[in-house]
């Protein structure tokens, strides 16, 4: 099977300029800090000094999305509810006894919002910022399913992006006042008379200290402290209602006072466990499945001591010996977003409408704006079950066949050249308008698998030597054996279907 292909390709390369990081380090850094690794991406980094490359990745992080926002992000909750009710009534009424196709605004905005972010992850020039945005979304979870007010989740997403590599303390304080969070964890209805514990509990258990670091009385005290923080029904903005705040004496983590929400957050930020919780989670996301407690403690001390600046922490993480340890290459499992967004980027596939991708993300267990529960995505080995492994392979087979088969599940199809404007202009092009803008021009007769060098593999893969192609696509030797002597198309196809492609 692996004729003409030696495992030596993956061994650490030998002679190079003293400061140049080389192919393997560059590949590894990109596989963890970007979405999808391309030969061009590796080429741009490999001659650089490693620390300089890391600094480059972290310099001037984008604070706003590239993709234009959907048009409805200023809509208040009352207005959205009014439209939703009207649409529901219209639908119930029906036309001539038939159920009309009425678009429900909450569902439609949710669909557009998910598509918008997937578009941004594919289009962005700073994938690390999107990765961090997704990380904070998985940490400070809120879901459309519960919140049912998409514009609040858009603004929460903007907050995560603004602070993606910013400051964790500012982020935490902003999240506690974030309307989507106040709806998601029921803070908006929490009043002195009867505090709702939902936010307080998750704040302690998931956002800061971690389970076992506090007791039930701390949860109750924190819940009282946050009473009165709510959401204005007209504008959808944060509002403080002093009349509903419990101004009384509270004891929280051994400290007593007439605490409000901000004092609770200050106390939490002073706890060493808070920094450790974040560092551990980042370690699992970026380094390996097994955080090294001593290293976590070291990084956490620096994180807290430096006032919770995220950028220096990420720099330290990327520069750590553990991150660069060859044993940790290919030691993480790609998340569904990694797999789907990464593959689309690597192949340069133009996918004007993102609904099909979101549906696939749903099957694989990672829908943006809809984490499975307040703990976010468990990640790691849990990404792969007997069910999802089969679905992943099916998705990849479809990607491979997409060079010939026009529609993919009705939603993914090939256009002659990348056309991302389709999503930007309308967010929801009706099928007719889409065809007018971009008439279907199916590529004739061959899938990646049996195509030669002339096949359009997207700008990133053309003209690259097979061995390099394989080394760029896989973090380690192929598991199932890949014939590197075939055509470029067949090499890419079998690399994508190799078990090692599931790793990063």
């Amino acid at each position, binding site marked *: 099977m692996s004729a003409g292909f030696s495992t030596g390709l993956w061994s650490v390369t030998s002679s190079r300029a003293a400061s140049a990081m080389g192919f393997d380090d560059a590949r590894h850094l990109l596989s963890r800090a970007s979405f999808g690794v391309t030969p061009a991406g590796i080429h741009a980094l490999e001659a650089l000094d490693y620390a300089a490359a890391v600094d480059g990745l972290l310099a001037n992080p984008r604070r706003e999305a590239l993709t234009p926002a959907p048009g409805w992000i200023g809509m208040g909750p009352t207005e959205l509810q009014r439209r939703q009710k009207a649409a529901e009534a219209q639908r119930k009424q029906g036309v001539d006894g038939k159920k009309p196709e009425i678009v429900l605004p909450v569902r439609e905005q949710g669909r557009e919002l998910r598509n918008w972010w997937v578009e941004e992850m594919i289009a962005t020039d700073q994938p690390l910022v999107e990765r961090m945005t997704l990380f904070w979304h998985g940490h400070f979870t809120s879901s459309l399913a519960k919140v049912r007010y998409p514009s609040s989740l858009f603004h929460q997403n903007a907050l995560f992006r603004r602070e993606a590599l910013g400051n964790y303390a500012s982020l935490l304080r902003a999240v506690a006042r974030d309307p989507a969070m106040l709806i998601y964890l029921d803070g908006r209805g929490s009043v002195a008379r009867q505090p709702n514990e939902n936010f307080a509990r998750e704040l302690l258990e998931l956002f800061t200290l971690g389970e076992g670091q506090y007791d039930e009385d701390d949860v109750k005290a924190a819940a009282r402290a946050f009473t009165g923080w709510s959401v204005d029904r007209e504008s959808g903005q944060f509002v403080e209602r002093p009349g509903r705040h419990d101004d009384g004496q509270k004891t929280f983590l051994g400290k007593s006072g007439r605490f409000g929400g901000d004092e609770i957050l200050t106390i939490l930020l002073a706890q060493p466990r808070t920094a450790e919780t974040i560092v551990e989670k980042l370690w699992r996301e970026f380094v390996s499945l097994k955080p090294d407690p001593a290293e976590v403690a070291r990084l956490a001390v620096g994180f807290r001591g430096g006032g919770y600046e995220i950028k220096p922490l990420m720099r330290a993480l990327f520069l750590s010996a553990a991150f660069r340890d060859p044993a940790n290459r290919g030691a993480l499992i790609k998340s569904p977003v990694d797999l789907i967004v990464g593959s689309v980027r690597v192949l340069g596939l133009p996918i004007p409408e993102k609904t099909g991708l979101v549906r696939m993300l749903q099957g694989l267990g990672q829908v943006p704006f809809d984490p499975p529960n307040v703990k976010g995505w468990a990640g790691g080995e849990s990404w*792969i079950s007997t069910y999802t492994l089969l679905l992943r392979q099916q998705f990849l087979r479809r990607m491979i066949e997409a060079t010939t088969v026009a529609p993919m599940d009705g939603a993914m199809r090939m256009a002659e050249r990348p056309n991302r404007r389709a999503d930007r202009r309308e967010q929801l092009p009706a099928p007719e308008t889409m065809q007018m803008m971009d008439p279907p021009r199916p590529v004739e007769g061959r899938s990646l698998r049996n195509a030669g060098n002339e096949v359009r593999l997207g700008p990133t893969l053309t003209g690259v030597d097979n061995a390099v192609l394989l080394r760029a696509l896989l973090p380690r030797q192929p598991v199932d054996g890949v014939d590197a002597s075939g055509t470029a198309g067949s090499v890419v196809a079998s690399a994508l279907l190799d078990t090692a492609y599931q790793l990063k």
Partner: protein
Amino acid sequence: MGRILLLVELKGGNDGLNTLVPYADPRYRELRAGIGVPRERVVQLDERVGLHERLEPLMDAWKAGDLAIVQGVGYPYPNRSHFRSIEIWDTASAASQTLSEGWIAQAFRGARLAKGIGVDCIVADTNALPSTGPSLRTIVMQDAENFLRQANAIATESAMTDGGNPALHHLLAVRQEINAAAVGLRDRLRDAPAPAEAFPQELLLGRQLDLATRILSARVPVLAIKVALGGFDTHANQPPTHERLLASLASNLAVLRRNLIAADLWKDVVVVTYSEFGRRAKQNASGGTDHGTSAPHFVMGGSVKGGLHGVYPSLSDLQDGDLRHTVDFRNVFATLALGCWGQSYDFGLRQPQRLGFLA
């Protein structure tokens, strides 16, 4: 022996007080002034408790004596975190102890299982923890046809080892499970008849029970099947959501029962509900309930001894505002392990009790 366990996880923490309602207790009206189930909406079971009227579809089973309700199920030192508490249930651990092996897998530790068909448990939802462990082979699938089609396309053998990479090790192990199960399931599932009566399809539970019914009618020799219904975390404006969930649960279970009776399988199946916790006795200001402790659970099947089991927790003797459990869930599991599979296992209980719901 040899009964198949059908686990129904109620995700989010089902409110036991509004499921099996202690309608005769004046304390109930005080605690649930806004969201309590009115007397006229309770289907009376005895002079103290009754089912929420939305559970009416379960009354056929109740009258036939094959619905048992175990009251006050919980555990000491209750944990109110969703994740930790469901882990405690799924691994049958004490609150202070962390285990990684699921309770079904523990019950079969060291047991000699027949090679069977390459799969021991089938999970139709996503949480496979109860059967996770080295003693059992678990497959997660949403529908049989897709599973078989996709399994056909996956590579079968590989000479490669994982080289000490735990992520790759996991991938290869999962692939191995798929291959083994596909071999065993292919012919049986292809010929499985569709259920006599269609399941309601609006929630995933219906589709999952459809798959379960096909597996059962195809006589696939599994130990357990797991399905789930989510959405029980009702912190705010609870009644409409909770009622919809109860109605869906009851109608789906009623269809399941009729299908299995028609297929002459009802005696061979034990259906059990469980949830990470019940909810706080006193409602909150948002018209909802916060995380609580013990709750009643349903056990159904042709060989189940119907009726109320255990004692309803007292509403006047709360512990931190929560119901004290009267039945340890590990006794429920121990009773099931013995009654379904003949496995004697005490799940670390010092004084295990055999409960009366399964002969």
